[in-house]
């Protein structure tokens, strides 16, 4: 299935959960906030959040700012 992650199209196997996606991407899970189709998915719900073809995922973290 195709997922749009932070604006980039990427191919993944079916049935992936958000938690697995974050692990596969190698992103540090403790510092990232995730949105699926503009809905924030809380940390503790990532394991039960099944992703589907065409989902838009945003992975956000703190950076420097004023």
């Amino acid at each position: 299935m195709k997922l749009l992650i932070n604006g980039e199209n990427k191919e993944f196997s079916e049935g992936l959960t958000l938690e697995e996606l974050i692990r596969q991407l190698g992103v540090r899970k403790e510092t990232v906030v995730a949105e699926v189709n503009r809905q924030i998915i809380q940390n503790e719900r990532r394991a039960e959040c099944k992703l589907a073809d065409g989902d838009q995922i945003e992975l956000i973290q703190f950076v420097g700012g004023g």
Partner: protein
Amino acid sequence: MAATIEQVKFEDTYQINGKTFTSRLLVGTGKYATNELMGQCLEASGTQIVTVALRRVNLDNKGEKTLLDYIDPKKFTLLPNTAGCYSAEEAIRVAHLARATGISDFVKLEVLFDEKTLLPDPIATLEATKTLVKEGFTVMTYTSDDPVMAQKLEQAGAHAVMPAGSPIGSGQGVLNPNNIRIILEKLKCPVLIDAGVGSASDVAVAMELGVVAVLLNTAIAHAKDPLKMAHAMRHATEAGRLSYLAGRIPKKLYAQASTPQKDF
């Protein structure tokens, strides 16, 4: 016995939505040459509240150190900003994302109107303030130095109102001290100068006006020697605050001799 200056500084606290602070300098974490330098500057500045931003994870550089490797959220109150948002909806979304980190429910609300001036959109700012206050955020709102807008934001429930001294990153200092004086006279909630200061003297001037604190970023991060400037800003904040508390002499047109003029 008279209090020592350290006691005066220790007891001179202020609160934002019930949370007590002693340092009156809030420092941003953007634009530093390295994160190590940023960490040193935060330390030197004595700050207790640091602003941070939220952006997409760089998927090509994953696993790299993140900002939070350099800032201990137990030591500093994180103040996530909504910088770069040009509508109330965008700013509210960013505030939600920030809160979802579980680290802070503070938000530096900033809804901009255009990229050249980085001036706030007053209508969208007011709308977003109302929403985020209702949702239980601690809302510190960036605004222009308009006394009417400042009052509207306080009425909307802002926990702190933060007029810009001058445009963001411009280093022009406090351009309209009279507007800041009027804002201070009218508002009961904490008023901070956010943005525009360039040097230690700018910070001292702001503090002498009676604002509870100053928020700055570029003035330290882009100084020739950021670490020295961080120290300077800490001293300037304390000097300006003490000068405000001490009460300055009135300005007079003519000289007033300091030395007795007779009996020699």
